[in-house]
């Protein structure tokens, strides 16, 4: 099975600190895999938004693959090709896209609450700096949508300060604020699709 794996710079596991060998070298867990304890952990495309890190690799898994909520675990794996399209610039592009999604949710919150003029004001922002200023101002002016506006402002801050995972998290929570757990799941699915399409990944893995 081919899956994906985020690693820190230099092929280092983000939590295990395991130094992965170069592509093609099999790594075997010493015992049967147990999620979050031992084994080769990897992502399906739908899992990617939860595990962003500096490097993204294809990984071939061998043996029985366990499916967990946001990950899969196998007894063995070997790195394939590094996804070269996942660069700091691409990560920033993703963070920006997520921040704009949070802004869109705040616009929708204002519109749903009957504040059409303020919704237009926020929708008219052309930069994330403008979103930040407008969202914070409107959060004071329109208390009933304060939380959605605060979330949008914070999403802009996080994108502007280069924190893609946080920006994505905030966008998911902006969606949840409007549409509950279903909105959260839909936003995470959108994030996964963004990564799959932008990085040219195989969606069916």
């Amino acid at each position, binding site marked *: 099975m081919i899956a994906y794996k985020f690693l820190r710079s230099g092929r280092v596991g983000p939590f295990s600190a395991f130094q992965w060998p170069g592509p093609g070298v099999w790594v075997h867990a010493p015992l049967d895999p147990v999620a*979050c304890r031992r084994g080769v952990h990897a992502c399906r495309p739908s899992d990617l938004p939860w595990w962003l890190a500096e490097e993204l690799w294809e990984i071939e898994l061998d043996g029985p693959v366990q499916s967990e909520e946001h990950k899969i675990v196998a007894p063995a794996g070997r790195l394939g090709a590094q996804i070269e399209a996942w660069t700091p610039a691409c990560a920033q592009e993703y963070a920006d896209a997520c921040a704009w999604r949070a802004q869109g949710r705040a616009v929708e919150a204002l519109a749903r609450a009957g504040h059409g003029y303020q919704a237009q004001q926020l929708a008219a922002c052309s930069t994330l700096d403008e979103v930040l200023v407008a969202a914070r101002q409107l959060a004071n002016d329109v208390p009933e949508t304060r939380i959605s506006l605060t979330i949008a402002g914070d999403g802009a801050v996080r994108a502007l300060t280069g924190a893609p995972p*946080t920006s994505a998290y905030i966008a998911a929570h902006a969606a949840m604020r409007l549409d509950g757990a279903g909105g959260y799941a839909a936003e995470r699915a959108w994030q996964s699709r963004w990564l799959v399409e932008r990085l040219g990944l195989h969606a069916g893995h």
Partner: protein
Amino acid sequence: MHNSGPPINGHPVSEFDLPVDEVTCQQFVELVTEYFGGVLPARTTSQIEEHLVMCDWCVTYVEQIHATIASLRELGDERPPEPPDAVLAALRARKAGGT
């Protein structure tokens, strides 16, 4: 586990009443010893690690813990000096006096 992540613009996210399963910053701090000990259930461990991917506040907290552990290791087995007799006597007298 339920609710929230790092504070949003100074507001505790618990205020926002969120319906998804996530570890909060406060929960992370409470669970950090068990997390490092590897004794948490897999699901909780996964939620903590998901939190660490996106919460730089808690990543900083982990870095501080690692720095503290490293500093303590550098001290080795060196024991702190015993307090002077005069200090011990004063403490005993204070305790005896009930103040």
